[in-house]
């Protein structure tokens, strides 16, 4: 809270340009101009989540305050889009250098019945040791997906199943405001450029 107030005081003393740049930090939803991704600043969605990490600790969005969380929904038996998105995220983090250290990649499983904490942890860390995976009960998973407008469903495959799901990466600024949606079709470089725009604001 203190930091928040300090920033406000700073803003009061700043010129219009500074005001515009910092406006997002006070919780307002100033639209951002992204080159590639979708601006989600004005969407009433992705306000928070409450899930469990692979060490059994409960995590919410505020657990990652000060970082720039990038949330991706998927499942470890996903052959294509999930490993591609996570490998891209690892590439983005490297590409951003020092700035990349604030990027916190969060993988939320849409398959909590099969994705055990052990498999989830090993799965995300093969891409980057800083990546975290979160998991909920079926009800919690349904709730967080609804909050993010994420679609997912089981698809029968022989005597087991595979899954369809939304493949957007959701990015929050360091104050926990949802800002950006990155399509799986974007390159690591395109994503990194838009992530720097988020960082400029907050």
């Amino acid at each position, binding site marked *: 809270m203190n930091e928040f107030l300090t920033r406000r005081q700073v803003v009061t003393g700043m010129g219009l340009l500074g005001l515009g740049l910092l406006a997002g930090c006070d919780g307002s939803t100033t639209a951002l101009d992204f080159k590639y991704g979708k601006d989600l600043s004005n969407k009433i969605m992705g306000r928070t989540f409450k899930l469990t990490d692979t060490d059994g600790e409960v995590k919410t969005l505020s657990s990652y305050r000060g970082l720039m969380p990038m949330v991706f929904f998927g499942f*470890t*038996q*996903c*052959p*294509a*889009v999930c*490993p*591609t998105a*996570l*490998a*891209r995220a*690892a*590439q983005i983090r490297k590409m951003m250098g020092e700035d990349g250290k604030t990027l916190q990649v969060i993988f939320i499983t849409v398959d909590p019945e*099969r994705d*055990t904490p*052990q*498999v989830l942890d*090993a*799965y995300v860390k*093969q*891409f980057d040791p800083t990546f975290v995976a979160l998991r909920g009960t079926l009800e919690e998973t349904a709730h967080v997906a609804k909050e993010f407008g994420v*679609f997912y469903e089981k*698809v*029968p*495959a*022989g*005597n*087991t199943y*595979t*899954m*369809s*799901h*939304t*493949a*957007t990466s959701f990015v929050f600024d360091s104050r926990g405001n949802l800002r950006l*949606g990155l*399509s*799986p*079709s974007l*390159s*690591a470089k395109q994503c990194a450029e838009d992530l720097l725009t988020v960082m400029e604001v907050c």
Partner: protein
Amino acid sequence: MNTVFAAVSRSLVSRTLGVALLAGVSLSAVAQTRVEDPWVRATVAGQPSSGAFMRITADTDSTLLSVTSPVAKDVQIHEMSMTNDVMRMGPVDAVPLPAGKTVALDPDGYHVMLMGLNGQIKEGDQVPLTLTVKNAKGETEVLNVSAPARAAMDMSHDHGMTH
């Protein structure tokens, strides 16, 4: 394959000898289904499934009917599609292989699902795959392929998604 080659060659010989010879040479080189650059994504311990990818070119209008592998209890062919950033996945019965057209089994479309893995697939492992292809005449061809396992982080073969 030799039977098919011979039959085609004879019909060509009846037209002109020169063309038959030229065509015969090229036919003998492609008179089968080609599989290029097969690979499997390595898994972490406890991960029960993975994907296999490759490029397939058949010389006649053919169909990939099935794939088997000793590393998995259940091998299926799935198709992935992306609409408005929603990834949809599901099993398919077969993959059409139009004559002369290279069909990619890659992370952007069709791929082979190795389900119920018997163990972890580590980077560098060679994964045997057996493909059954039916050609336009209804003849069945069995292809044995050895697919190296590549690290999940290896994006060099994930064409399309990262353009």
